[in-house]
């Protein structure tokens, strides 16, 4: 097991390096084609040559390779890696540390994630198990129809509809009925409020979780159906075990392997969804920060945030892989 974790961790470091390198190549290429991002620092003002040079120096954009299209700019890349090694993820255009920005934004994202993960895990496991248990019955058909229906509404459509059709009237109604500081009024706010972080991420989180759970429901159903048909389930029944015991220890337990794999996949999906959700619901989180950084050409911030998100993703993947091995002994002993 120890060796397995070590091997996966080494692979993860390799993956991370690749992500960072590709990210560097893409941004470098963008700078080379689109012109100097240091100009974004000055907004509408026209800076003098010395001012531009000073800003370029400050953000590490003074290397001549940024003017040569196609040059991979390995020098600045090495410098950045050296910075990462010391925990220095650079600054945004206003000189604020990326780590500092992430430290304030991340908790809101984590809250959103918590709501999302709980929603789709509960929805997926519950509805998926129900559909598998009553295969071919009305409950099964209903659940499958619902999951396809959810899939037909992408997250941004769900959010748009919620925000413009439901959120405003609901929050107005809640404010007039329960008072403007009441919980219902906070729940249906169309935008984020840092003072009521949990309340304002709840509904967007539920919606994002719902969108993610659609595919998850079908996966849980399929993997449990496979377990149901398994001969080991028949063996368990032949021992005279209670159906509930058989279900838990031989069906759900055996179908947990693909389900855990899906947790990793859905996590990354939720990450992408969070960027959209946070952007649309004005939630100040990682996604929101990234959204703003991209719009403001804040290259340093984009690279820093994406790198941190990549690290988080890779760590989640390792956790999933280790859980996978813990759940299925056949993988452990490969």
């Amino acid at each position, binding site marked *: 097991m120890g060796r397995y974790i070590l091997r996966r961790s080494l692979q993860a470091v390799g993956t991370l390096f690749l992500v960072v390198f590709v990210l560097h190549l893409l941004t470098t290429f963008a700078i080379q084609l689109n012109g100097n991002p240091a100009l974004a620092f000055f907004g509408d003002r026209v800076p003098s040559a010395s001012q531009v040079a000073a800003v370029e120096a400050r953000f590490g954009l003074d290397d001549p390779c940024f003017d040569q299209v196609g040059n991979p700019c390995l020098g600045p890349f090495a410098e950045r890696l050296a910075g990462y090694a010391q925990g220095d993820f650079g600054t945004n255009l206003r000189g604020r540390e990326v780590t500092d920005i992430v430290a304030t934004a991340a908790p809101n994202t984590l809250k959103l994630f918590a709501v999302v993960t709980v929603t789709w895990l509960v929805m997926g496991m519950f509805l998926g198990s129900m559909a598998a248990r009553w295969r071919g019955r009305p409950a099964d058909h209903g659940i499958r129809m619902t999951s396809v229906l959810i899939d037909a509404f992408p997250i941004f459509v769900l959010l748009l509809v919620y925000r413009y059709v439901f959120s405003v009237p609901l929050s107005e109604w809640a404010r007039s009925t329960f008072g403007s500081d009441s919980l219902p009024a906070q729940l249906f706010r169309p935008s984020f409020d840092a003072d009521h972080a949990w309340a304002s991420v709840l509904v967007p989180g539920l919606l994002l979780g719902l969108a993610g759970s659609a595919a998850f429901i079908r996966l849980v159903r399929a993997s449990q159906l496979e377990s149901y048909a398994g*001969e*080991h389930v*028949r*063996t*368990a029944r*032949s*021992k005279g*075990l209670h159906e509930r015991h058989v279900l838990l*220890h031989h069906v759900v337990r055996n179908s947990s392997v693909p389900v855990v794999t899906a947790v990793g996949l859905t996590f990354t999906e939720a990450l992408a969804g969070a960027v959209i959700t946070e952007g649309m619901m004005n939630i100040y989180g990682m996604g929101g920060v990234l959204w703003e950084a991209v719009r403001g050409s804040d290259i340093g911030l984009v690279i820093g945030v994406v790198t941190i998100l990549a690290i988080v993703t890779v760590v989640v993947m390792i956790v999933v892989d280790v859980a996978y091995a813990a759940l299925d002994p*056949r993988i452990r002993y490969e």
Partner: protein
Amino acid sequence: MTAVGQMTTSAPTGGTALRAAAGETLLEVEDLAVEFRTPDGTVRAVDGLSYSVRAGETLAIVGESGCGKSVSSLAVMGLLAPTARITKGAARFRGTDLLALRPKEHRRYCGEHVAMVFQDALAALNPVHTVGYQLGEALRARHGVSRGEARRRAVELLDLVKVPNARQRVDEYPHQFSGGMRQRVMIASALAMDPEVLIADEPTTALDVTVQAQVLRLLAEIQAERTMALVLITHDMGVVAGVADDVTVMYAGRAVEQAPVREIFAAPAHPYTRALLRSVPSLATRGAAAGAGARADAKAAGGRLDVIPGRPPSPGQVPSGCPFHPRCEVAQDVCRTDPPPLAAIPAEALTTAAPRAAACHFALDVLGGARG
């Protein structure tokens, strides 16, 4: 190969006081019929099957794939697929009709009184639980045995089925066992609750020939020790010769011949049984064939192996009349129209007192022909 003589002698009356006395009828299946719903309508997989098996004795149910032998035992265990339905019949364990019980109560008899060994141990054991967990699982869940005690019993069970190094192997997973050892684990798992009746569904089919013999010997030993009733489902007449006391030959969901093992090997009364015996490779049947046997075996032993022409009918398209008539070498016109009932053979046609039955219009001719 003196296996026949050795193993058909009735088991020593050992075991605990709770054990059934050898000879007591433990499981009695009567007129069992099972239907399956398929896209092409319902098909009858088992049609009026009856058999009984006594403590300390082995009944072999023999037939080709799809003849309903596995389905009938799954019905007894209450493990049929949702598409299957038991349309009539009873399966009495010590007088209690298991099929008349509610599913939950039926389940309670499983493992405790009637247990089953499945064919493919790799698939039948759960890959994500240790062998020890699976052996002790029922004891823990049903008898509230503690974890440590269940583990101790698991080690005992592994010792019982002669898995070497049981103390260490109890913590391993099924995929770490060889095929033969895995089948032993499967047997141990069925024995965990000390059942009185063991149904073994082709327990050696997936194994090498040498390992097959070991596993069968083990089964016979354990059965004798515990005075268990054993229902051995197989398609292998060689296996039957080795361990069975009585034989039920099935064809197209029906029993076509029922007789003690010696009599059936000496003189089959149904053309299908005769054809089955001829199609066994000579090495495996040497013991049986030498015992006087179907004369035709001499031919098989000398040269090419006889095969039964055609294929067994699929349960959806059973021929009219006797289901075996398209493949039968003695079929007459009557066989195409009238299905023969499973009828007792008159005592005067028999050489021993043991009753036997065959479902053939010409059973006496076949029997006489075999005696030559």
